[in-house]
């Protein structure tokens, strides 16, 4: 509250100064709000498409706010000379049709320079073609389905799907097998049970894991599904328990994974639960994630990355708490990709819609060190950052136990 009034006082003060400088408040030529950067060329917009209402909104809000953080920083640092940047966040309600509408809305605005999003791969499927039509670059912080970049036959005959689509996160076909290797080879768990939440992310991840486990000589003893709104997993656990697995792999996100892990333990199934980056979140432990549970996440451990730490600190300073959720850092990087490419695109010139082509080239050539490690794209638009880390819950916190690249 206090912060707010200080901020407003600052706004009021600076505005009054500007008005005083003009000598009268009749001056309607606007846009200059007293910042120190030159913003004479106007305002450009970074779009965000993510679920901002409904039950995935925690993840969506993390994406939105992290993008806002990146844009704020860029405005302060005058990253894009001559322009002020804003974020326009559109709710997709995790619904493909709503996502299409949100994307169309952004695509009709000539000042939109790029879009961060989406959370759900299924929504991405409707957003991709709409943005491609207008050659608007899309950088996803969270879509993990390999088909989005490399098509349905992504393993045998990869083919770039949309030249405007990039992502900074890892894909199921890397993360799943990486986890499988760890489970089977390093941890020596041969009998693995799979539980998924039935959504694109978890299903894709689990399917890729399953292939690799079998390849490495492990055994999938059972595959079960829980409802995405379920809270009582006793039935699934009892069933899995009868199969005597040595580990359980969960394809899904932490709101289900945490309680699932706890209920497993309570029911006497005390084997580690492993998941992907969707469960790599402090909340997982809070919600019941037990000692010894495992998760994979993209990039090297945060502690070893100065960029990651500074993101966390800046986020906390801006929003007061660390609710950037699972994809905040990726979203921050995504926004920075767009901003960085934009700076290069408008260097010495002005923005107009015809520059979108150049944006695509500049994003494809983008390379920098972000909050999640190296940010760079391969010929399909996937992140080249194939470094993955396995984390384990130790003393109620995630601790890295293995970092490396998936090599097959």
């Amino acid at each position, binding site marked *: 509250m206090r912060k707010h009034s200080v901020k407003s006082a600052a706004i009021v003060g600076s505005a009054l100064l500007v008005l005083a400088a003009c000598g009268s408040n009749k001056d309607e030529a606007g846009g200059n709000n007293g910042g120190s950067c030159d913003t004479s060329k106007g305002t450009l917009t970074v779009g965000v498409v993510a679920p901002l209402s409904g039950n995935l909104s925690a993840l969506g809000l993390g994406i939105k706010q992290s993008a806002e953080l990146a844009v704020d920083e860029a405005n302060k640092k005058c990253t894009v000379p001559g322009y002020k940047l804003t974020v326009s966040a559109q709710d997709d309600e995790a619904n*493909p049709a709503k996502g299409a509408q949100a994307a169309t*809305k952004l695509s009709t605005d000539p000042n939109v320079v790029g879009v961060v999003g989406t959370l759900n791969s299924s929504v991405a499927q409707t957003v991709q073609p709409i943005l491609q039509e207008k050659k608007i670059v899309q950088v996803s912080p969270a879509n993990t389905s390999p088909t989005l970049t490399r098509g*349905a036959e992504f393993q045998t005959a990869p083919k770039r799907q949309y030249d405007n689509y990039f992502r900074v996160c890892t894909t199921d076909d890397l993360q799943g097998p990486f986890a499988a290797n760890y489970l089977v080879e390093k941890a020596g768990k041969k009998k693995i049970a799979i539980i998924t939440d039935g959504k694109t992310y978890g299903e894709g991840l689990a399917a890729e894991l399953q292939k690799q486990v079998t390849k490495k000589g492990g055994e999938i003893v059972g595959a079960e599904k829980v409802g995405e709104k379920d809270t009582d997993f006793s039935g699934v656990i009892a069933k899995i328990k009868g199969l005597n697995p040595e580990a359980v792999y969960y394809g899904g996100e932490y709101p289900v994974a945490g309680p699932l892990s706890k209920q497993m333990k309570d029911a006497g199934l005390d084997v580690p639960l492993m998941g992907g980056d969707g469960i790599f979140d402090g909340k997982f432990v809070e919600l019941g994630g037990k000692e010894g549970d495992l998760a994979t996440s993209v990039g090297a451990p945060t502690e070893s990355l100065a960029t990651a730490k500074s993101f966390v600190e800046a986020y906390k300073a801006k929003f007061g708490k660390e609710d950037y959720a699972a994809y905040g850092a990726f979203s921050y990087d995504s926004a920075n990709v767009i901003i960085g490419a934009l700076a290069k695109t408008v260097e010495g010139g002005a923005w107009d819609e015809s520059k979108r082509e150049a944006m695509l080239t500049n994003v494809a050539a983008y390379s920098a060190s972000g909050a999640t490690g190296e940010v760079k794209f391969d010929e399909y638009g996937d992140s080249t950052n194939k470094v993955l880390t396995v984390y384990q819950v130790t003393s109620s916190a995630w601790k890295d136990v293995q970092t490396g690249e998936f090599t097959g």
Partner: protein
Amino acid sequence: MSTVAISEKRSALAPLGKPLAIAGGVLAVVAALLPWVTFSLNDGNWPDKSTLQFFDAPFLVTGFRWHMLLFGVFILVAALAPTPSRGRVLRALGWGTLAVSFINALYITIKGGGLGAITALDGEVAFGGVVGVVAGVLVILASYGIGIEPVADWKFKVSTPVAYLVLLVAFGGVLYAVAAMLTTGGVGASNPYAGAIFLSFLGFAGGVLAALSGVGLVRWISALSEEHRVFSVIVLAACALLLPFTDAGNEYWMTVAANIGIYAATAIGLNIVVGLAGLLDLGYVAFMGIGALVAANFSGAATAYFGFSLPFPVAAAIAAVVAGIFGAIVGSPTLRVRGDYLAIVTLAFGEIFTRSAQNDIGGFTNGSNAIPGIPALSLFGAEFNRSITIGPVKLPGGVLYYILIVLLVAATMAVFANLKFSRIGRAWIAIREDEDAARAMGIRTGKMKILAFLIGAMLAGLAGAVFAHKNGTVSYESFKFLESITLLAAVILGGMGSIPGAVLGASLLFVLPEKLRDFEEYRLMIFGLALILIMRFRPVGLIPDAHRRAEMAEKADENAEEAHVEARKA
């Protein structure tokens, strides 16, 4: 109780009615010319030159201040000229003035950091908002002083050509209002004030509409349009097809309008089941999903079940038939199950559908990966999602979908209307009203109910087929319980059994969220609250079916009578 309170207020305010109204009108005009905000806001100027100095450019008044100016003039006219049901008109205008002033002042206050932004506290003078609010309150008080008479009933008849002219002008006005509503606040994502501007515009439009309705014009025109039904429908369809040529004719609004149309067509189908036959269906969107899945599987998309593609009309027909078959199956327990129990059966079916689709049942749904990459429709080589150019006119992308969907909605409306006024429609309504009596009239109620489900599901399946191609992806996530509820709400909000009602309901439920994206966090909450309030204050819906309208009028008469009696007692 409340009537007594009003009558007391009336006695106190009665002599002041006219002076108060005049004062309010003058104040509204003044407010329009006053500055509203003391400085330029963080995101740029509060729109439309609201920091303009006192009186220095009265002809540059635009945006919400133009609305205020109009309100002021209208109020003065209504107060001074002989106006039918003057109190009612003034009340509407007063509320409109209040709403516009309040919304703008509130937004400035919140965004600008306190009351300083709209007063003189910060050294500059900006009293526009305060004066506007006062003006609104004065006019509302004045209206109660004058007294709220019933809506005037215009008796005079006009010749057919004149009637046609009036209808043309009226529907033209509707078209203009719709286009203005869609485009207000800017089309793209750049205007940071879009949400507030839109709300302010709604305040203006609502006030004017209520005033026109109070003066009796709306009732007169709707009576005229019922008299010349065919002409009205043609003009209305023409207006709908003209929308792409207005300011709203851009890709975004074409997409939104097309989606609205798809849901409106579905809602009309649901209206057969709920509004005519009186059967509550809580899983209706599943039929749309089935239609979409069938069309997707025949579309030639990479992950479709069938490796070939069928021409769209054939695929759409199959989609409708398959959805219809499922409709009949779901409806079949109605042979034995009554009323609310049926609702739970439909709900169960909806849940079974989403669950099965999520699990890729039979390989038809591609599970959680959905079926992406459904090709856009095309006709003579023109892809429906591209923009097209006809001579000098460039039409936005998606306009062909829009036209297709307008035709779809028109066709669905025709189906609904024809069925409603037929032997079968009467049987449905009879079942809704009294099932035992309907059976005693020889109506095979079970058969009729299944028929309602079947036809409703077919319409939904057809809409689903268009949906699949329009959106390019079919995922179970588009057909969840909340969508069923939204559809049901559209039917009930618009008015059960009423055809324009379903379209209006669908439009509101899908346009408002689009316009209120600024408030996205509260969207669903507002949706819930709106459902409660509508049921509380207008349970028959916005455009009730003629029969129900009569019902409502009856009730209003009763209320008026009671109020009369009570007043006399007091």
